[in-house]
């Protein structure tokens, strides 16, 4: 048994317990201390992640390779950004409690376990740990009826999705004889000998994971939950908890089911096209910026799924770069949305941004950068993700996917540009409250990354390439 391989998870989990204990025992409010500690722990964990070697541990339940390291770093980065971003929002909304960063850390532990899963049971345990923490976070503003509704809705629908996933896992186990990824891969080596049961199992596993990704047709919860949950939690939900199910989907599809591509490729293509279409057309009518971001995230997951549908190593590399840029853009946009606060009240209508450029040029410029990047305008970071996945689709001969992707990108430009138009060309209304320094730091850091990613993308592309190669190994 190779304990050291799971050192990052162990350190993160034990530190989360320590922070929890600290928060419980101190009589005075220690939210700020706990938040600072949480960020520090994430940084330490990231250093440990970089240091872990490539091997399997715990009797094959757990694997560490370049792919899991890349995903874990991305998950930790998303968590840190959202922990920092939530500090100010929560205190102004009067929901700041020390459990908030602790739940985020425990959720991150679950996500890291997911990305290291080498067994269907490990996958499920990690997924449940991640989701359960997010349900609680979604209902964190317990006196706000919308937040409670968001939490309940997410919990009930997600429990159903977990049931579908478990059913799929049991079918896959029954028809391949094992839970272990490599043994399943051996059992289904011959595509001709695949039974219908295994195909149904794969379909259910995809359904369960697609729910977490909010890909169409499992997206219904997304707009309501995004709108109802506290904005700091919405920011978290749209970053790291989107990465983890995606990397686990990649690992499951190319690991155990790598030889039966024909069984799952049509499903992924269908989900991808539906997500891209719904994400771009349904967002047009939105007036609430959080709902807009929800539809935008559905669309983005559709674009990223194009890379998976391609079924090649370059496709996986494209997805990994896409997820990186998506996490940064999302965290950045939400840091701007969190700053939308007038006379102490959080506002979330697009109309509230009217004429922002005249009151606060920095915020307006940053939000404009994120919107341009989400629309995929070169040379911003968002463009590279899209370029890589579409290129992979073209290389794999999937012209339909690439063409639909480009066309829906054009449609989605409309609503991203509308936000920019409202900010820069509409009549200005009362200015927003002064934003805190922690928000500015997050917004400026992510904005700078989005803006100058094209200058030196080599290390990120290299890391993504290495991670993709590890998956195909």
């Amino acid at each position, binding site marked *: *048994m190779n304990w050291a391989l*799971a050192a990052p998870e162990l350190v993160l*989990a034990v530190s989360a*317990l320590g922070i*929890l204990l600290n928060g419980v025992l101190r009589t005075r409010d220690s939210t700020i201390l706990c938040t600072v500690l949480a960020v520090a722990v994430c940084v330490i964990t990231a250093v440990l992640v970089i240091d872990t070697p490539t091997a399997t541990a*715990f*009797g094959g*339940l*757990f694997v560490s390779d370049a792919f899991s390291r890349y995903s874990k770093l991305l998950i930790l980065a998303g968590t840190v950004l959202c922990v920092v971003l939530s500090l100010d929002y929560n205190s102004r909304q009067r929901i700041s*409690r020390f*459990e908030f960063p*602790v*739940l985020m850390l*425990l959720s991150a*532990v*679950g996500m890291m*376990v997911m990305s290291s899963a080498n067994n269907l*049971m*490990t996958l499920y*345990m*990690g997924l*449940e*740990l991640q989701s*359960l*923490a997010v*349900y*609680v976070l979604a*209902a*964190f503003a*317990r006196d706000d009826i919308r937040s409670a509704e968001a*939490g309940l809705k997410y919990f009930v629908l997600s429990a159903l999705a977990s049931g579908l996933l478990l059913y799929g896992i049991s079918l896959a186990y029954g028809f391949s*004889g*094992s839970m272990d990824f490599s*043994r399943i891969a051996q059992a289904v080596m011959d595509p001709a000998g695949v*039974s*219908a*049961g295994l195909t*149904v199992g794969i379909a259910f596993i995809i359904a369960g994971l697609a729910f977490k990704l909010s890909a169409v047709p499992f997206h219904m919860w997304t707009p309501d939950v995004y709108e109802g949950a506290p904005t700091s939690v919405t920011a978290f939900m749209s970053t790291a908890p989107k990465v983890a199910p995606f990397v686990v989907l990649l690992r499951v599809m190319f690991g155990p089911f790598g030889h039966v591509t024909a069984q799952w490729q049509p499903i992924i293509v269908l989900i991808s096209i539906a997500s891209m279409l719904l994400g771009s057309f349904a967002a047009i009518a939105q007036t609430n910026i959080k709902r807009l971001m929800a539809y935008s995230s559905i669309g983005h997951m559709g674009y990223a799924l194009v890379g998976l549908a391609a079924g090649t190593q370059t496709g996986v590399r494209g997805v990994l770069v896409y997820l990186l840029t998506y996490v940064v853009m999302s965290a950045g946009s939400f840091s701007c949305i969190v700053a939308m606060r007038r006379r102490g009240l959080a506002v979330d209508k697009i109309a509230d941004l009217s004429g922002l450029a005249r009151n606060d040029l920095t915020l307006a410029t940053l939000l404009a950068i994120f919107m341009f990047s989400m629309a995929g305008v070169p040379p911003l970071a968002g463009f590279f993700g899209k370029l890589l996945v579409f290129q992979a689709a073209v290389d794999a001969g999937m012209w339909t996917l690439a063409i639909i992707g480009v066309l829906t990108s054009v449609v989605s430009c409309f609503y991203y540009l509308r936000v920019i138009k409202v900010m820069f060309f509409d009549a200005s209304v009362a200015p927003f409250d002064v934003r805190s320094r922690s928000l500015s730091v997050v917004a400026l850091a992510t904005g700078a990354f989005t803006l100058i990613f094209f200058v030196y993308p080599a290390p990120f592309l290299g890391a993504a390439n290495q991670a993709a190669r590890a998956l195909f190994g």
Partner: protein
Amino acid sequence: MIVAVAFYVFSAILLGSAAMVVTSRNPVHSVLFLILAFFNAAALFLIAGAEFLAMILVIVYVGAVAVLFLFVVMMLDVDFTALREGFQRYAPVGATVGVVLFFELASVLLGWRMSGDVSAAVLTRLPSHVQNTRAIGQVLYTDYFLLFQLSGLILLVAMIGAIVLTHRGRHTSKRQNITRQQERRVDETLQVVTVRSGAGIRELGLYRPIPVGREPVLAAPATTEVSTIVAQDQ
């Protein structure tokens, strides 16, 4: 022979009580039928040789979950007849979905080909020399240690969640703080103000406790003055 009879008896009661859970009018009866169904399922597990699962089913499901359901049903006054109102209207849709799903699953089952060496495909064989409680114990804390610990974390998150979402620190209780009592001085406790005769304390703004963010406004001195002592709220 006896085993076969027992199997059919338990199965029949299980199916019957499961049907009653859904159809019975009184929700308390539904929960009681659910408990009966659990007991019969436990008996079936015993017949199959899985005594650990049987005991867990009785302890966890009957002992905790079903009793919890019973509490919820009896404490929350849920109007179950109102919940069933749409049943007639939605029944065709539900039935269609059910039929489609049934045929899908049936097609899977019919396409099932038993391989020749089924016993070789089973990775974990039934151990003949150890009881299955011991067999589970042997792997649970060794091979599956990681998963065991992760379940612990999941339960911890559930506990934190329950506390975060429902616990409210009591602010109404008045606890005696002796140090604070000793440290109080007269000038922070008593305030001497002049009050016009006939003026209520509401007009003078001497309402206690002081509303947050508003200082009491003293009225202009009047001709007849009466000194009053107002005890300040700490």
